[in-house]
């Protein structure tokens, strides 16, 4: 390895070296452009409210202060939202992963009766849908409007995840394995439990992560199906406070006008951090799985 790179260095022409330098420069710029807004927001969330509103924060925190976060924890809407989001994420992920495996595994078996048409049946929903209103009417008919189930069930299966899982099962659990177990007198359920699931840990990790992040970040279903504020997930609370600029009610009455405005402004940065940090902290450790999942998915099956 070392000798190979050394010999490459010798052969590298001036043009190539220039080219490579340009590549490094551009990539460094990309790095900066992506990273800067994130750092800026994090810094703003832990600077003093006065520094944020007078525009003195450029890169690093100014006058370190955690007032924004303190205020956040005293805001009931935010805490309820956080709790709700946790519930939706955990419950939604369990339901989604279970359903996805239940459809993806049979579809991966060549012995399945009517496998081709079934696959069509599933993938067709990817390219054509009844639309927003007809779907809404179905959810309404089922009486799911304004209930937690509305966020867990109607969007439980993503076809893309089914495709990814199916390709995985197809390539890593050969039919011969099933035959061998059948000869040994193993039931289908037992086979699922003691052979398929233990062998499928990587794909299960991918499914769990994708669905969990999706649930945590979702807001559209909550927007159209929920009416009771107590059921709102964090993203909806966020939208109301930051985008619609409704300052979190009743939290800061005792404070002076100016201070209140400053804090309301800074609260927004803290909120963004609180809503995004869980995902971004876990992400570097699980990036491997995400990439893996995408690679499996890009193999045409």
């Amino acid at each position, binding site marked *: 390895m070392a000798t190979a*790179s050394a010999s490459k260095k010798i052969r590298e*022409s001036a043009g190539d070296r220039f*080219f*490579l330098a340009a*590549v*490094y420069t*551009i*990539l460094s710029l*990309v*790095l900066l*452009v*992506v990273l800067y*807004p*994130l750092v*800026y*927001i994090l810094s703003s969330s832990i600077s003093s409210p006065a520094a944020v509103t007078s*525009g003195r924060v450029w890169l690093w925190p100014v006058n370190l202060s955690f007032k924004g976060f303190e205020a956040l924890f005293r805001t009931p809407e935010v805490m309820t939202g956080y709790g709700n989001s946790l519930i939706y994420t955990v419950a939604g992920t369990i339901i989604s992963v279970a359903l*996805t495996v*239940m*459809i993806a595994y049979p579809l991966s078996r060549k012995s399945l009766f009517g496998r081709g048409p079934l696959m069509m049946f599933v993938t067709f*929903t990817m*390219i*054509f*849908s*009844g*639309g*927003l*209103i*007809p779907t809404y*009417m*179905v*959810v309404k008919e089922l009486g799911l409007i304004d209930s937690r189930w509305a966020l867990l*069930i*109607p969007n*439980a*299966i993503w076809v893309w995840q089914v495709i990814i899982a199916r390709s995985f099962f197809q390539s890593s659990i050969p039919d011969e394995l099933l035959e061998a177990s059948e000869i040994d007198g193993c039931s289908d359920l037992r086979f699922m439990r003691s052979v398929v699931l233990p062998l499928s840990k990587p794909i299960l990790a991918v499914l769990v992560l994708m669905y969990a992040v999706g649930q*945590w*970040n979702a*807001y*559209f279903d909550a927007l*159209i199906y929920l009416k009771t504020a107590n059921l709102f997930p964090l993203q*909806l609370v*966020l939208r109301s406070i*930051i*985008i619609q600029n409704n300052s979190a009610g009743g939290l800061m009455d005792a404070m002076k006008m100016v201070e209140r405005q400053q804090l309301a402004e800074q609260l*927004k*940065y803290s*909120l*963004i951090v609180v*809503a*995004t940090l869980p*995902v*971004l902290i876990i*992400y*570097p450790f699980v*990036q491997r799985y995400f*990439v893996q999942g*995408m*690679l499996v998915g*890009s193999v045409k099956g």
Partner: protein
Amino acid sequence: MLPPLLFFLLFKYYPMLNAVLAFKDYNVIKGIWGSPWVGLKNFKLFFDNPIFWSLLKNTLLLSGYLLLAGFPVPILLALMLNEVRGGRFKRIVQLVSFAPYFISTVVMVSIIMLFLAPRLGFANLALNALGMESVNFLGEPGYFRSIYVWSDIWQTAGYTAVIYLAALAGIDPTLYEAAKVDGASRFQKIRHVDLPGIMPTIVIVLILNVGNVMALGFEKVYLLQNPLNIVNSEIIATYVYSIGLLNANYSFATAVGLFNSFVNLILLVLVNSLAKRFSSSSIW
């Protein structure tokens, strides 16, 4: 296997049946099937409405812009990353550029709004520091499309690049050896080995993107929308939402939505057959 099939029937196929609403005059008491048929009245109403052309224009301009600007960026990013051999730098760039993908739409729009706020936003503070006037970015309809497209690229380029990187990793190493023996420069290598190598992937991603032209993300447009920029930001999807769910005009909104789905389906089939003719890759 039964529960997932039930799911697809109930939440995907049943709504397709319900879409007959588009050909009816919906009446709450009579329900979907009891309501009277009105033929193509709702569609006619939509096509004759002057808003039809502005919706179509806004939808196509926004997604066209996104396609033109957003499609090449991840390819370039992947090609550049591929030139960097191993090492920490490559890993860091990849890790960081992938990260915004996990930011939710709500947070993304929140960040945009904080950065572009008329008074205290970062962009305007920077402009002021350079001695320039503040600009109300989100209040100017003219900026809307650029804000949408470039924030989207910021968020997804790193993610999409991973797909291309995977394709690059699958290129036969002997091709590089041959190029080296022939004395190809890095740039020539990219042009004659890398690009042809990932062409099938490029075509497939392109097909998927074009297939999404009409299915433009409702969520982000809706959140970025305000009364000041609505002339450019009202697209078909947001119109369906406001007419259907906010004004409860179910039949009309269903017709508009159905029109959208159909155009989308036709586009997808068209692009796929084009891709089949001009290269060997297609999605079916």
